C-alpha cells in the first residue's frame, strides 16, 4: 500500500487527535489558545512539507485515491485557508462557552474531508469525503446552540445537506448500476449513454451544486452563513466551495466528457444562474454575512465558467481563483470578526465609520471586497481574467459578457460597504480593539491579495502545472 499518498490526510487527522488528547490533559477552565497555536503550527508545518511534493504522482490501490499536483494544489488551498481561519478564530474560540478544543478538532476533520475530496478518484471515496466535511461543518455551524440563529442554521444545513447527499448518492448508485464499477477510470469506460446516465449524472451534479452553492441549490447558504460563527462561515465559504470544485472538476474532466451528453450546457446554466442570483440578491442585503453569502454564490458562477471549456486553461483559472478567493475571503471575514466582537453585530451599520476607528481593517476590507469584484490590480481581476478568457476561447462569449456585466453590478454592493466604512458615522465611540492575530491575518490576506494581483506569475504557473495533471 502506498501510504505516502495519504500522508497529508493522515497527518491532519493525527493532529486533530493530538489536540483532542491534549485537551484532556489540560485544566477544564484553562484557555485553549495553545491548542489553536498547535493546530496552526502543525498545519503550517504540513503546508511547508507539501510544498516539496509537487511532481509526485501516486495512487493508493487501484487508483481509487490519487496523489497528483492537482490534488496537492487543492490541499494547499485548504491548508492555507484552515491556517488563516484558525489564526483569526483564536479569540472567537476563547469566548466560546464550552468545548473549545473540539472546535479545532472538528475544523481539522473538515479539512481532512476536503483533502479526501481533492484526491478522490472513485465514487465511494468521494461520498465519504463529502460526508466527513459536511458533518464536521454541521456541528461547527451549530456550535453556539444557545444562539437561536446558530441552531436554526445548523438544522437547516443538516436537513438540506442530507437531502443533497441523498440525491447525490442515488445518482451515484445509478452510475454504478450502468458501469458496474466505482472508480473514475472504470466509469469513464463503462458509462454508456442512457437515461439512467442522464438522471444519475444530473443527481451527482445536483449534489455538487449544493456544495458550491450554485442556484437554485444555494438557498441554504445565506441562512447558514448568517447563523454560523464567523470563522466557520469563512471556512464554509471557501473550503466547502473549493472542495466541491476539486471533486467536481475531476469528475467532469475524467468521467463525463466521454459520455456524449452536453454537460457543459448544464454547467453554463448553473453558472449564469449563480452569477445572476448571487449578484442581484446581494444588492438589498444589509447583513454583511448574508451579503458575502450571495457574493460567494456569484463567485461560484464565475468559477463555473472555468469548467465550460473542458480544458486545462479553464481549470487553471479555477485553481487560481479558488486560491486567491481564500485570501479575499479571509480578509473580509477577519475584519468582520473584529467588527462583530466590537459591535456584536455584522450589519452594514455596524461597520460604518470603520476607517476612523481601525483604518487598517478598513483598508483590508476594501481590498478584499474589490478583489472579489475583480478590480485591477488586485488578485481577483487576474482570476476572473483567466476564467473568462478560457470561456471565451471555448466559444462561450456570452457567459463571459454576462460575467463582466454582473461583476460591474457587484462593484455596487461592495462599494456600498466601503462607502459605509469611509463615509458613515461610527455607531459608537468606544475605542476599537483589534486582537493581534486578527490584525496579522487581515494584513497578511491583504498583502497576498495585492501580491498575487501585481505578480500573478508564480501562482498561475503553479495552477497551470496542477491543472495539467487532471488532463493526462
Amino acid at each position, binding site marked *: 500500500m502506498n501510504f505516502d499518498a495519504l500522508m497529508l490526510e493522515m497527518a491532519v487527522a493525527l493532529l486533530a487527535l493530538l489536540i483532542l488528547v491534549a485537551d484532556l490533559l489540560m485544566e477544564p477552565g484553562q484557555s485553549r489558545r495553545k491548542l489553536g497555536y498547535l493546530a496552526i503550527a502543525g498545519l503550517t508545518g504540513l503546508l511547508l512539507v507539501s510544498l516539496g511534493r509537487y511532481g509526485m504522482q501516486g495512487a493508493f490501490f487501484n487508483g481509487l485515491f490519487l496523489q497528483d499536483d492537482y490534488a496537492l494544489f487543492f490541499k494547499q488551498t485548504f491548508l492555507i485557508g484552515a491556517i488563516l481561519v484558525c489564526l483569526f478564530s483564536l479569540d472567537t474560540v476563547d469566548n466560546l462557552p464550552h468545548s473549545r478544543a473540539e472546535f479545532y478538532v472538528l475544523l481539522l476533520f473538515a479539512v481532512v474531508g476536503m483533502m479526501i475530496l481533492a484526491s478522490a478518484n472513485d465514487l465511494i471515496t468521494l461520498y465519504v469525503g463529502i460526508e466527513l466535511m459536511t458533518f464536521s461543518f454541521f456541528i461547527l455551524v451549530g456550535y453556539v446552540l444557545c444562539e437561536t440563529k446558530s441552531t436554526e442554521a445548523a438544522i437547516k444545513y443538516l436537513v*438540506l445537506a442530507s437531502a443533497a447527499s441523498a440525491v447525490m448518492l442515488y445518482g451515484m448508485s445509478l452510475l454504478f448500476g450502468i458501469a458496474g464499477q466505482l472508480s473514475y477510470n472504470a466509469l469513464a469506460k463503462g458509462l454508456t449513454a442512457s437515461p439512467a446516465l442522464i438522471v444519475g449524472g444530473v443527481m451527482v451534479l445536483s449534489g455538487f451544486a449544493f456544495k458550491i452553492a450554485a442556484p437554485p441549490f444555494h438557498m441554504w447558504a445565506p441562512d447558514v452563513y448568517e447563523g454560523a460563527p464567523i470563522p466557520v462561515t469563512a471556512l464554509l465559504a471557501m473550503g466547502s466551495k473549493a472542495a466541491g470544485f476539486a471533486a467536481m472538476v475531476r469528475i467532469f474532466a475524467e468521467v463525463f466528457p466521454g459520455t456524449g451528453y452536453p454537460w457543459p450546457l*448544464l454547467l453554463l*446554466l448553473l453558472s449564469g444562474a449563480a452569477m445572476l442570483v448571487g449578484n442581484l440578491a446581494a444588492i438589498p442585503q444589509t447583513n454583511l454575512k448574508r451579503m458575502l453569502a450571495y457574493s460567494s454564490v456569484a463567485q461560484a458562477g464565475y468559477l463555473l465558467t472555468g469548467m465550460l471549456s473542458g480544458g486545462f486553461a479553464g481549470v487553471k483559472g479555477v485553481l487560481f481563483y479558488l486560491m486567491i478567493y481564500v485570501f479575499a475571503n479571509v480578509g473580509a471575514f477577519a475584519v468582520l470578526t473584529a467588527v462583530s466582537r466590537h459591535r456584536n453585530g455584522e450589519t452594514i451599520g455596524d461597520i460604518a465609520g470603520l476607517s476612523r476607528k481601525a483604518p487598517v481593517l478598513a483598508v483590508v476590507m476594501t481590498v478584499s471586497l474589490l478583489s472579489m469584484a475583480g478590480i485591477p490590480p488586485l488578485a481577483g481581476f487576474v482570476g476572473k481574467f483567466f476564467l473568462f478568457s478560457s470561456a471565451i476561447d471555448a466559444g462561450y462569449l456570452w457567459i463571459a459578457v454576462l460575467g463582466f456585466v454582473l461583476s460591474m453590478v457587484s462593484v455596487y454592493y461592495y462599494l456600498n460597504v466601503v462607502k459605509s466604512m469611509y463615509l458613515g458615522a461610527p455607531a459608537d465611540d468606544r475605542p476599537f480593539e483589534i486582537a493581534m492575530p486578527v490584525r496579522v491575518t487581515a494584513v497578511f490576506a491583504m498583502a497576498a491579495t495585492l501580491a498575487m494581483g501585481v505578480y500573478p506569475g508564480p501562482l498561475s504557473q503553479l495552477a497551470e502545472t496542477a491543472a495539467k495533471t487532471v488532463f493526462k
Partner: protein
Amino acid sequence: MWADFSLHHAWLIPLLPALAFAIISFFLLRSPWLAARLAIAAMGTAFLIALGVVWAVGSKGITVEAPFVMKTVWFSMPGLVASMGVLVDPIAAMMLFVVSLISLLVLIYSTGYMTGDPGYARFFAFMSLFAASMLAMVIATNFLQMFVFWELVGLCSYLLIGWYFFKISAREAAKKAFMTTRIGDFGILLGILFLQIAFGTLDFGELAVKVPAYVQQNGVALLTCVALLLFAGPIAKSGQFPLHVWLPDAMEGPTPVSALIHAATMVVAGVYLVARAFAIFSVLPGAMTVIAWLGCFTALFAAAIALTQREIKRILAFSTISQLGYMMLALGVGSLTASMFHLMTHAFFKALLFLGAGSILHALHDKADIFEMGGLRKSMPATCAMMGIAVLAIAGIPPFAGFFSKDEILVAAAHVSTPLYIGASFTAFLTAFYMARLFLVAFFGEENPHNHAHESGLAMLAPMGVLAVFSIIAGIVPFTMGFGDWVRFGPAHHAGIDWGIASASTLIALAGFGLAWAIYGNGARRSDAIVKQVGVLYSLSLNKFYIDEIYQWFNRNIVTGLARVLYWVDLNVVDGIVDGAAQKSGAVGNILRRFQTGQTQHYAALMLMATVMMTLILAITAGAVAGGGKI
C-alpha cells in the same frame, strides 16, 4: 564581490525604497523621526547597490550590445507573455547611479526642509515611492514594465505636487500635471499596443532585432507614426512643447519634490524612454527629425520665457524645459551619448539649483520673487557659493560639468544641421543670461531690509555640497574616462573637443553673462528701459507666449461646449440606461429575496425540482426523449 552581488540583485534597488514606502505608510506614520531614517537608509543601501552595479558594468564589460538581463514571467496567457525583469547596461547603470544618488541627497535635504510639516512621515513615504518607481522604470526590460512604472511615477508626482493640498493652486497644479501627462500616456499606450500586435513582443532586446528587419521589409511610414505615438509620452512627461505647461505649475510642490522631479525622476523619464527605445527611433529618420526640431524649439522657447520670469522656481522650471529640449535635440540628431551625458550633468546642477532655491525659500519663508530677495550673499554665503557653481555649470563655462555635455550636444547638432546648431547656441546664450540674472538679482545688490535671511542647517547644506562637487567634476571626469565608450548607441564615438565649437560656446556663455551684468550688475535695475523698447516681446515672454491662455480659451469654448453636449447625452441616455439597469437589478434583487423564505421545506423542494429540470433539459437537448428513451 559587491559588484557581483549588486548586479544579480539589482532588483533590490527599486525594491528597497518601495519597502520603505510600505513600512512607513503602514506602521510608521506616527513616528516621523524613524520614518525619515528608514527612507534614507533604504535609499542609501539602494545607492550602494547602484554603485556596485556601475562597478560591475565597468569591470565585467557589460555593454549596450550585451546587457545583463534577468527576467521572470509576470503573467502569461496564450499569445501574450508579460515579463518583469532587470536590464542593466551602461545607460541603465548610469541612470541608477544618478537617480539613487540624487534621491538620497534630496531625502537627506528634506529632513531639514520639511521639519515641522504635519505630514513629515507621509512625505518620506511618497518620496521613497517616487524614487522606487523611477528606479524600477530604469531597469525595465520591456515596454509594459516600463509603462507600469511610468504611470506610477505620474501618480507619485500627482501626490507630491499636490502636497499642500489645502492650497487651491497646489491642487490645480497637481491635477494639471496629471492630466497633461495623461495625454502623452494615451499616445504611448497606443504605441505599445501596436508594437505588441505587430511584433508580438515588447521586450527591448527583441524589438531591437525585429524593428530594423521590419523597416527593411515594409518601409518606415507606419512605424514612424508608431514612434511618434510613443514620443507623445516623452513630450508630456519631459515637458516638451506644447505639453510643457504643467512643469512650471508643478513648482507648487515642496522644493525637494521639485528637485526630484526636475533633476532625477519624472522629467528625465521621457528622455530615458526615447534612449531606451533608441533602436526603434534611430531607424526612423522622420521621427528623428521631429524629435530634433521639437527639442531645439522647446529649448529656445523655454529659455525665452525664462528671461522674464520673476519667481525663482519658475525660472528654474523653464530652464529645465529648455535643458530637456537640449537632451531631446541630442537624441534627435542621433547622439545618445550626448543626451545621456547632459542628462547626468544636468541632474546634478539642476538638483543643486533647486536645493539652493529651497534653501533661500526656507530662509525667506517662501518669498519667491527674486526681485524681493536682494543681497542674499552676505546672509547666505554657502548657498550663494554653491548656487554660483551651479550657474557656471548650467551656463557651460569650462571646466564645469555643463560645459562638456553641452559641447557634445553642440558638436552633434553641428554635424547634422546648421540651423539646429545655431538654435542650440542661441539657447546657450539665453541660458547664460537668465541664470546670471537670477544669480545677480537674488544674491547681489542691496539687501532687502524686510528679509531676515539666515543660512540653512547642515542637513540641507551637506547634500548641496555633494551636488556642488558633482556639478564641477561630473563633466570632466566622465569625459576623460570615456563616457562615450560605454553610454552609446551604435559604434563608440571618441569625441575629442571640437575647439572651434567649444570656444564659440564659451564665448557665447560669457556674452550672456556680460549682458546680464550690464543690465543687472551691481544691484542696478536697468531693465525697465529695455522693457519699454521691446514691450511686445517682453509681455510675450512674461506671459509664457500665452500658451496657457490659448489652452484655456480652447478649453472654455470648445472642450466645454463638447462636454455640455456629452453631459446631456450622459445624463439622459447613458445614465438613463444605467439607472434603469440599476433599478431593475435592485428590483430583481428584492424579488429574489422574497424567494428566500427561510423555510427549509421550500428549499428542499426547490432543489429537487431543479434536479428534475436539469434532467429534462439534458434529456431534451440530447434527444433522449424524442428517441423514445432508446439511444
